[in-house]
């Protein structure tokens, strides 16, 4: 066992409402090793994003806390870079300038040449050097998300936090980006926490899948270690019995153990099923 890298201890959070405090999370405990790829999966509204935002420092836990390399997380910072769901590129800056803004914060006062090289290096990691002078509005959704990842990587984060990074993309683009993320993770070895709705995505990318129970007072339900050799190939894994076993376990957790009863969420569940069905088709292709 490696030394403690990222530790969530007894994390809980309450949000004030007119009817009194609403407990969104309760007793979330998680130990993450350096270089591990963790997926958070669970139904909508179960507090996955809240966990991520607490690790990012964008939200402060009411109870418990997060420790990264021996220091408590109290505010956001570039060592815990976030890839947002809607890419969140600044629309008035070119692709290059968007990444440069992040680089200028982390390499403050360094010579211009070094900054330029680092920006281009990170754009190269996500294969986006060709569009460096384009504005975000001029490139596709998948490309925007690539740039979002490049911006996060450029901060040289200890932990890369991804909030449903591919949720808004079509299935083919998503598969493409998943491969890119696996490639980058193999190359750089960052610790990654990723939120996802997609069971295939979680099994394909993760070292461990953290499955969350439904809210209110959501917490970690089960943790599933994925012991599949890397590099992983989506085509080869499609017929792999171990892979399908993992998938089945996650699906069982989501749709049997944590089945949502509220009628409002029936649509969401259906959408999720449709999503994973789409994923299967790609695997078969």
């Amino acid at each position: 066992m490696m030394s403690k890298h990222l530790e969530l201890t007894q994390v809980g959070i309450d949000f004030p409402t007119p009817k009194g405090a609403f407990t969104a999370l309760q007793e979330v405990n998680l130990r993450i090793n350096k270089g591990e790829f963790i997926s958070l999966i669970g139904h909508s509204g179960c507090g996955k994003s809240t966990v991520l935002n607490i690790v990012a420092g964008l939200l402060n836990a009411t109870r418990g806390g997060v420790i990264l390399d021996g220091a408590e997380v109290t505010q956001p910072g570039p060592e815990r870079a976030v890839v947002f769901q809607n890419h969140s590129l600044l629309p008035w800056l070119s692709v290059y300038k968007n990444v440069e803004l992040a680089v200028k914060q982390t390499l403050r006062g360094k010579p211009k040449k070094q900054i330029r090289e680092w920006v281009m290096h990170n754009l190269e990691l996500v294969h986006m050097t060709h569009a460096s002078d384009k504005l975000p509005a001029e490139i596709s959704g998948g490309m925007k998300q690539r740039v979002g990842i490049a911006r996060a990587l450029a901060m040289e984060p200890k932990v890369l936090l991804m909030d449903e990074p591919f949720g808004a993309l079509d299935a083919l683009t998503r598969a493409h980006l998943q491969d890119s993320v696996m490639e980058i993770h193999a190359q750089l070895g960052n610790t990654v926490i990723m939120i996802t709705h997609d069971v295939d995505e979680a099994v394909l990318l993760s070292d461990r899948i953290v499955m969350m129970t439904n809210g209110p007072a959501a917490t970690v339900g089960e943790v599933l270690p994925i012991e599949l050799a890397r590099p992983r190939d989506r085509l080869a894994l499609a017929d792999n019995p171990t892979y399908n076993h993992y998938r089945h376990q996650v699906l069982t957790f989501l749709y049997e153990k944590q089945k949502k009863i509220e009628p409002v969420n029936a649509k969401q569940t259906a959408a999720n099923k449709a999503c994973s069905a789409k994923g299967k088709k790609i695997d078969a292709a």
Partner: protein
Amino acid sequence: MSKSATPVLSISQTPSNPWIEKLTQRVPLLLLPVIGLVLFLAVWNGVAKNIDTSLGQFPGPAQVWEQAGALVDEHNQQRTKAEAFYARQEQRNAERVAQDPTYPAKIRPFTGAPTFFDQIWTSLYTVMVGFLVASLVAVPIGILCGLSRSSYTAINPLIQLFKPISPLAWLPLVTMVVSAVYVSDDPMFSKSFVTSAVTVSLCCLWPTLINTAVGVSNIDKDLLNVSRVLRLKPLTHLRKIVLPASIPMIFTGLRLSLGIGWMVLIAAEMLAQNPGLGKFVWDEFQNGSSASLARIMVAVLTIGAIGFVLDRLMLSLQRLVSWDKNSVLR
């Protein structure tokens, strides 16, 4: 191209020239405003003939056109007079200096009455000063209100209280305060100018302030989170995130403000006697000659045209500054 277009053309029986086609498509767009204008002139002409005032018949388009020409002529005459005046002075000075080399040459300014065009210029200058002062105050306060919930809560009641006040209500107060405070032996600006500009400022502060505050407070939360994750310094945050994100709303406010400022200015100039278009209208009204109403009508149309041009200028400026070149601005 022509091959694929042929069947369509044979059906519609239109000439195959694409230019003519384009023109025929545009014709309604060009023609409709002209029709509107002609109708307006006709109605104006008809109604004017039936209105008899103590200053004679209400002016129709023809009389107004005539007076517009007269105002241009007066302007030219006044310019010629001024040139002659300066030429005479220089000649006289040259003669005096020739007689007595120690004579200090003096040039006295021309003191003829300001012409219509001088008055347009004064109005533009006054409104711009008032508008600039208001913007310099409103944008920073608006940004502050947008950034901080508590300062918004503190300032909002004041905004709501002062926003609906008519310029005519402010004017007596402003006049008295300017007379009391703005005292100097060699004033850079006339008091009437300062009074008008301050009144304009007081009235066109609010749209900019409110729109800036709304623009800043509605910035996408994800963008603010990006700034927090990057730990941008407050000033960088303002420069890189807040200002560009709220530019469209700031400009919406500025355009509204300039429109209001221009309306307010005419009223302010009438009462403050600042020698601009407002004073022109007032003087013609007091003068009461048979041509007065037509001359006022010229001023009215000029005010409208200048207001329109000012708005278009602001729109072009907004297009120039805004990052979102695709957004429809109108």
